[in-house]
């Protein structure tokens, strides 16, 4: 068979693959295009011609409006960046520490303890008791702490880390370190963490994403504007013009270019994620594969 000729079945399958994947990829990315393009359209064009792929009148006035009085946006950014950085670091450190002790075969109650946290995924109190406990027992309403603590730990990630430690850290390594006089915490800090850095990076990025996108904790527990994270502020802007006007310190709600302002705000809120995406994507893919390979 001459090598230049492609079998018809192969050709057909490749053709189907290109068409189907092309369509799906287009559909998934299309809303992003609409968003970015129209955020540069003038309010007048949106009101008169609607959203379109080719804007009739280019304008950056919505962005100008946001950057004219950026204090509140910057504040929301600050809250989000803080809870994302601090929360992820704390969550990753404490999760892996717990996961390490659960992974040690010489810990007699490790399975009981693992089940103790696993049980919370099988049965929970539901939203209402959680809400009441957090507000009236723990008194965490309107605190930065609740934004950090709310999405902090995932049983799933802790158990993935435990499995990972069990399979990728040879038990003999810990024993050797122990004979040399290292304590369990030192072993964890000096040996286990450096050896498993790539897996930790994946789990850390999933955690960071959860923090960045969390609007839910703020919606339930935060009323003070200075504590509102970016996603929640965005939600408020999208759902009320008054809030949008408030954020850009503009009293004249009537003249506010509300449609293009919404778009510009959305672009500003997803900007960092979309920019970081090409560099972090592979860690997420690795993370998903890590989770699906159960040990």
């Amino acid at each position, binding site marked *: 068979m001459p090598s230049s000729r492609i079998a018809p079945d192969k050709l057909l399958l490749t053709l189907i693959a290109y068409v189907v994947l*092309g369509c799906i990829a287009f559909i998934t*990315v299309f809303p992003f295009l609409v968003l970015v393009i129209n955020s540069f359209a003038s309010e007048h064009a949106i009101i008169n011609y609607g959203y379109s792929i080719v804007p009739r009148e280019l304008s950056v006035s919505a962005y100008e409006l946001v950057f004219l009085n950026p204090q509140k946006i910057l504040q929301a950014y600050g809250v989000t960046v803080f809870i994302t950085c601090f929360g992820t670091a704390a969550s990753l450190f404490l999760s892996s520490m717990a996961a390490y002790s659960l992974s040690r075969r010489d*810990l007699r109650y490790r399975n009981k303890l693992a089940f103790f946290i696993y049980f919370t995924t099988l049965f929970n109190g539901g939203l209402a008791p959680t809400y009441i406990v957090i507000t*009236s027992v723990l008194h965490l309403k309107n605190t930065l702490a609740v934004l950090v603590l709310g999405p902090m730990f995932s049983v799933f990630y802790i158990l993935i880390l435990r499995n990972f430690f069990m399979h990728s850290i040879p038990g003999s390594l810990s024993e050797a370190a122990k004979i040399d006089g290292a304590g369990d915490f030192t072993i964890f800090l000096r040996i286990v963490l450096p050896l498993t850095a790539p897996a930790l990076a994946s789990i850390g990025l999933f955690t960071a994403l959860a923090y960045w996108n969390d609007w839910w904790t703020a919606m339930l527990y935060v009323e003070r504007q200075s504590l509102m994270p970016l996603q929640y502020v965005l939600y408020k802007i*999208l759902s009320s013009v008054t809030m949008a006007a408030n954020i850009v310190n503009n009293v004249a709600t009537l003249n506010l270019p509300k449609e293009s302002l919404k*778009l510009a705000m959305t672009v500003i809120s997803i900007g960092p994620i979309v920019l970081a995406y090409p560099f972090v994507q592979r860690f997420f893919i690795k993370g998903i594969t890590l989770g699906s*390979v159960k040990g």
Partner: protein
Amino acid sequence: MRRQGLIRELGKNRTLYLMFVPVCLYFVLFSYLPIGGIVLAFKEFNYRDGILGSPWNHFKNFEFFFKSGKAWSVTTNTFLYNLMFLALYTFFSVLTAILISEMKGKRFKKTAQSFMFLPYFISWVVAASFLYNLANYEYGMINRLLLWLGQKPINVYATPRYWYFILPFAYIWKWIGFGTVLYLAAIVGIDQECFEAATIDGANEFQKVFRITLPMLRPTMAVLVLLGLGRILRGEFDMFYQLIGNNGILIEKTDIIDTLVFRSLLGTQDFGMATAAGFYQSVLCFAIIMIVNRVVKALESDYALF
């Protein structure tokens, strides 16, 4: 004797147990305390008396939840939507994973996969604004297109039936990249010799997909579908709440248990009903996941949850 063993174990592995304490404490406070809070389902809660001091009202909260007919309608909604999501999600994830694995052009493949995975990274808040850009009545792109074609614009935010299409579509849009990665990992794990042997035996590409790839994916699919069934009464709250919000016209067709609980809690402040409905959901979910775990254990014991 036994007690001494416990103390000795705690003493010997003191550091390891201490290392578990922060996480343990977290789950005690944020998961086990609320489980105790379920007593509120049988009480009439007020802030002054707190969880323990509030007066009992026995089964009144449940009575209200079931007699209003809400229990039945939100349960069926939750169940049917999730079933539809699960079926479509599995179908499209497997389809795209297979097509990506069959594709030779590396750059196209990579780009397509990156695009598909992108929605996973944004919140439902942003996704809701995407939907608004496309579908809102006045300026939305779809309606402008319909007008341009000489058709009447459609008002999706006032017409429940469109949501039977929009919600699954949005769900697939958000999750397809994630599912593709999962199934692609399973496909990569298939022994390449199977395909080579089939080629030598004269199998064409389609036969290889249907006779090798799909059967080899079946265990992964079975487990993932079963796990999905285990969560069938846990609604996708973020999506429903962000895309629909408190839209009164759509509520009957799109209200799920989670949105009902949320509205009772923050809207009408009916803590008793919210707790009762949440408890009802938790119990059903628990029962379902027990059954699912049994089934997984029987089929693929390696993948059993516990």
